[in-house]
């Protein structure tokens, strides 16, 4: 027992927890007027947690990683890298929010605080090495997310999104919990390493059901087909800053969690879950591509795009190798930048009365009225489609390279051929912006913060991103290595 070390290992979450409690008090007494102060302080707290995570990631004395709290929690490079991505996304989503909620005066200090709560949950998720920590972290994140989805109380779509998310999310949590109880029943332990040891001589039918249920519950959280149905509705209905958040941070956390469960807990039984992952990956790629074609709302389109991208990330998981895990982390980093950037572009699409515009048809001729924004959105679209030389190609590159190296050549061939379906609808957005006559509905931007974030992410996604590959690859490789520590 070494509480001092344990608290140090969990310091990012502890910092966030303490600040969230203090900020909650400020919000309770300060009321609506305090929302600006609370937002600023939340960002400061998240930057603090970010700095701590960076230290864990880069400081050689933490290279090995360590367990804390009797094997409930693990700090390693994998967790730290995931946390960095989560916290950065959260910061982005807080920065862009005030302008959005300013219309109708709907900004509340609870918004940053809820994101903070969700971030604590996500920190726990990516550090969980025990089914109980996993569940506590997941629920902490989910509860905050349900409230965030219905943050615009007076808006029917937002309320509907919150309710839908809650009902389906609760169902998924139930499935997950049922799977966990089966696993506990058949292995007698809730720790990932314990489960791995128990599975060393094979999986009984009951435990197999447990694995399937746990993976199903997690597939819901990463919105992989066939558990994706909620995604377009929730993404469309939730306020756009919240959608931005849903598409980035929780996706990273849930994906990291899935990786840890699959590779640490079920690591010895790859043959059991590999076919499930392959099916889910291909189904997500194909359905995410086909279903997006008919969409007229850009938020729904981006929802299907995120389903599509999750499919590509899962190809890395299907390999079950270190190279695959490293490729997934690389893809996640690029995915976060692309998604954050494209949603902030959407946030900047307002008509002259300041109402948000979500119809793709209304983007017509955007390249003439808002050339900078149109160029950035085009960069994100081509990048999401994985067309070189944009950086989105690199994510697909490493994932498919890992798949080929692991011998999954048919999977790689089908996956990459299906990526062409996706290219079709990304092209549609570019076509509307560049080839069509101006509809002239979009007003000039009123936010330098948004423009700065768009510029930043667009530069990262542009071909300049390749110069980061030499620096990124040791980091993702280190994170992947940490994941395989018990193997």
């Amino acid at each position, binding site marked *: 027992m070494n509480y001092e070390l344990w608290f140090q290992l969990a310091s990012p979450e502890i910092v966030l927890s303490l600040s969230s409690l203090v900020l909650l008090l400020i919000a309770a007494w300060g009321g609506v007027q305090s929302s600006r102060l609370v937002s600023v302080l939340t960002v400061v707290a998240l930057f603090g947690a970010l700095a701590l995570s960076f230290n864990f990631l880069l400081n050689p004395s933490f290279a090995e990683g360590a367990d804390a709290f009797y094997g409930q929690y693990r700090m390693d490079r994998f967790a730290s890298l995931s946390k960095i991505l989560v916290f950065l996304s959260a910061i982005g989503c807080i920065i862009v929010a005030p302008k959005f909620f300013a219309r109708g005066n709907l900004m509340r200090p609870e918004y940053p605080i809820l994101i903070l709560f969700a971030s604590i949950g996500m920190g726990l998720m990516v550090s969980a090495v025990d089914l109980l920590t996993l569940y506590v972290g997941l629920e902490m994140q989910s509860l905050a997310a349900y409230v965030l989805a219905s943050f615009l109380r007076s808006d029917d779509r937002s309320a509907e999104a919150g309710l839908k998310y809650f009902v389906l999310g609760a169902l998924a949590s139930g499935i997950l919990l049922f799977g966990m109880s089966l696993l506990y029943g058949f292995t007698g332990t809730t720790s990932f390493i314990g489960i791995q040891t128990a599975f060393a001589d094979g999986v009984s039918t009951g435990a197999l059901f447990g694995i399937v249920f746990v993976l199903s519950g997690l597939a819901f959280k990463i919105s992989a087909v066939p558990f994706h149905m909620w995604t377009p509705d929730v993404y469309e209905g939730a306020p756009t800053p919240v959608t931005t958040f849903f598409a980035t941070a929780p996706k990273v956390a849930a994906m990291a969690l899935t990786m840890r469960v699959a590779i640490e807990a079920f690591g010895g039984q790859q043959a059991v879950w590999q076919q499930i992952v392959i099916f889910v990956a291909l189904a997500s790629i194909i359905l995410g591509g086909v279903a997006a074609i008919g969409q007229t709302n850009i938020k729904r389109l981006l929802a299907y795009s995120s389903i599509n991208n999750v499919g590509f990330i899962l190809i890395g998981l299907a390999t079950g190798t270190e190279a695959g895990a490293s490729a997934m982390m690389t893809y996640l980093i690029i995915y976060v930048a692309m998604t954050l950037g494209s949603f902030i572009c959407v946030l900047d699409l307002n008509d002259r009365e300041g109402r948000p515009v979500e119809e793709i048809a209304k983007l017509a001729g955007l390249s003439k009225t808002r050339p900078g924004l149109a160029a950035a959105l085009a960069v994100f679209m081509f990048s999401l489609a994985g067309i070189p*030389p944009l950086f989105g*190609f690199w994510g697909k*590159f490493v994932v*498919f390279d890992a798949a080929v190296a692991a011998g999954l050549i048919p999977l790689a061939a089908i996956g990459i*051929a299906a990526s062409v379906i996706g290219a079709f609808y990304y*092209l549609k957005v570019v076509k509307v912006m560049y080839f069509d006559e101006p509809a002239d509905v979009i007003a000039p931007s009123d936010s330098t913060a948004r423009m700065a974030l768009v510029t930043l992410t667009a530069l990262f996604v542009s071909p300049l991103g390749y*110069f980061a*590959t030499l620096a990124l690859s040791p980091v993702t490789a280190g994170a992947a290595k940490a994941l395989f520590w018990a193997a």
Partner: protein
Amino acid sequence: MNELGFPILSLMLAVPMAAAVACLFVSANAARWIALLATLVDLALGIVLWMNFDIGGAQWQFVEKAALFDRFSWALGIDGIALMLIMLSVFLMPICIGASWEAIETRVGEYMAAFLLMEVLMIGVFAAQDIFLFYIFFEAGLIPMYLIIGIWGGANRIYASYKFFLFTLLGSVLMLIAMFWMVNEAGTSDIPTLMAYDFPVEAQAWLWLAFFASFAVKMPMWPVHTWLPDAHVQAPTAGSVILAGVLLKMGGYGFIRFSLPMFPEASVDYMWLVLALSMVAVVYTSLIALVQSDMKKLIAYSSVAHMAIVTVGLFAFNRQGLEGALVVMLSHGLVSGALFLCVGVIYDRLHTREIDRYGGLSINMPRYALLFLLFTMASIGLPGTSGFVGEFLSLVGVYEVSSWAAIVCTTGIILGAAYMLYLYRRVAYGVIKSDDVAAMPDLNKREIALLLPIALVVLWMGVYPESFMAPMRKDVGALEARLASVKPAGDAQVKMGKAPALMPAAHAEEGHH
């Protein structure tokens, strides 16, 4: 560092890249001048490159390598084949900019930026010595070309731009999977090393097919050529020039650089496939060209037929065939580019590409009619023009392998003469049918400045092809040596006649096979 003491290939990529960025931020007129200047600088650098290229020296020259990226590196270098194709690109680019000088009025800065970006990517494709760097340059060309067709194209431009993008993308993605496998197998992404690596014969078939899917679409070969007529018709004049002049050559370059040297056994196994598709293409697309009423479409279909001559030449596996294919590529790049410019000239005046609207242009546009005639003859392959040299060599080459292929493909020359002469007759001869055609002025100075250089090079290549073949000779020899062990016997069994004494010794030696 290389022979010149400075990284000339990187510089040739950097100049248009910097100019492309600059074009986005300046006025229309400034963008035109910047683009022209940058392409002329690149042309000058290209000439420096050619002057300093050591013919018969090292296979790879001007090599640069920098480990800038993870898993692949910034590796550039050229052999004679790449040199000639780079020369073709840098030669056509200033002409494209000039052709767009007045025709493009909207969003000039973006247009020029897209073209300069195309130039970067074209040079990059031919100069890349890392297989992944090649792929990035090869695929990246989709984005600017999609925008060029979609923004500045004709009435049905959106359909054409989608078709171009999706066809080419679908063709290329499987190639990437094959590249991953090859790099895993060989342990390097260095193209010269891979060219000498012997891949397992059973894997070669799959790899060859993956590469073939990509290059056949790009080339384009029948039956995946259907994107080309659409893209050509809808693209602005300069877009068609660059598409026909250089982008189609990437397919042929791919066969020479990847399919043939890396998978020689599979290439022989699939030779029948290539020859069969090419034979169909030559006859079928020539017949289609014969009935076109749209000038650009006619030239587009003739491009497919000419590219089929390239593929039969390449898959003849002998020197004549390979050299012939390369010369056809260079010649077609110039001639079809010039023909598209000729169409552009009269399109700018009358705003229609309908052949029937014209007639009797030799009366009021004599200079135009003369140049158009020259390019028509070059396209047919009249001796003395560039077209003859390449087609003759390709067909001689393929005759050694399959007399049937040679016979069928030679009909392409006759059909080519038919549709080109028929086109020329309808446009230039006869009487002037309407007042608006009669009012069309002859070529102005700008247009002459665009067409005359191409005309001179076409004649140069036709009269003294040695200038263009000399740099490539050693590389073709290396490829021939690589293919020697698998070369098919062929059905014709041609033997050299008894006249070698009349030829210079060096040439006579090459004739023996």
